[in-house]
């Protein structure tokens, strides 16, 4: 907002432009109790000898294997020959195509356990549809209701907690 025409007071040039910066700097000024020295040290001559250490490291880097070595060409030729032999003897008429259904549940579980996808349970929960998911979708065998009641009896002290609609 511009100042009123009759207002005789003035501000220094670009006062309002720099106000935010000044305010932020002031707000961010730490108390004097913060020590300025972080107190971290390095061993004597560490920085002097660093170049040598790094040079050694760079020389120790594994060698790049050429893309087309003779050995590789032989290996590729041998595998093509092997595939040709197998293909000639294969019964092309059988219809035993593998599908997702053929995978054993244990194999799928083992795959998920042994491969890290870097996803937290929360991130997984974000992509799983909640509305159409029943707890029975996650279980290979159904739970007997007697067992369920026994479990609740032994493990839940406050039954109000189970009233999800109220606790949502």
């Amino acid at each position, binding site marked *: 907002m511009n100042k009123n025409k009759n207002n005789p007071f003035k501000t220094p040039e670009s006062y309002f432009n720099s106000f935010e910066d000044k305010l932020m700097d002031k707000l961010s000024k730490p108390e004097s*109790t913060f020590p300025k020295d972080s107190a*971290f040290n390095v*061993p004597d001559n560490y920085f002097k000898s660093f*170049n040598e250490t*790094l040079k050694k490291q760079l020389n120790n880097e594994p060698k790049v294997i050429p893309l087309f070595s003779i050995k590789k060409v032989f290996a590729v030729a041998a595998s093509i020959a092997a595939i040709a032999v197998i293909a000639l003897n294969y019964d092309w008429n059988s219809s035993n195509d593998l599908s997702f259904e053929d995978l054993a549940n244990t194999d799928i579980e083992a795959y998920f356990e042994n491969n890290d996808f870097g996803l937290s349970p929360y991130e997984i929960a974000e992509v799983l549809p909640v509305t159409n998911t029943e707890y029975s979708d996650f279980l290979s065998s159904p739970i007997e209701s007697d067992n369920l009641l026994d479990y609740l009896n032994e493990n839940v002290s406050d039954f109000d907690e189970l009233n999800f609609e109220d606790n949502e």
Partner: protein
Amino acid sequence: MIEEETLVLDLKTKSKQAQAFEVLVNTYKERLYWQIRSIVLNHQDADDVLQNTFIKVYKNIDGFKGDSKLFSWMYRIATNEALNFIKKRAKLQGISDTDYQDKLVSNLEADVYFEGDEIQLQLQKAIATLPEKQKLVFNMKYFQELKYEEISEILDTSVGGLKASYHLAVKKLEQYLKED
């Protein structure tokens, strides 16, 4: 000091590469070291990460497009290397990143390369409680005295956002130190 553009050009030229790399290491090793050390806290790990950082720089210099300053580019590599190092170590020990960092701070008391008094140790403990971004911003601004514009280019965050992060970090640290 050699001009940055010349240095980058030399680094990409086979015949001048070795010499240029030496200049690069000499120019930046200390600054990058302190950035890494502020994240991994102990010297041995900082040394490992610093070496890996320069190895990465050496291998990827051809891919450096010059969109940002060489210094910011290397700082970003160093920061990411250090953060990944922490994450990997935490995973290896089967604990969360936060628990691992708490452990790092409690190890400081026995660290021969940490000569802090009670207040300096308390400040490090307080810094460890900050969220990652605030921790980075505080260390870079307060201890390394980088300009907001420089931090902005390294962390790819607006200057305004950085100021807010720094302000929040300072408030939290003051609160922590008062309570303790």
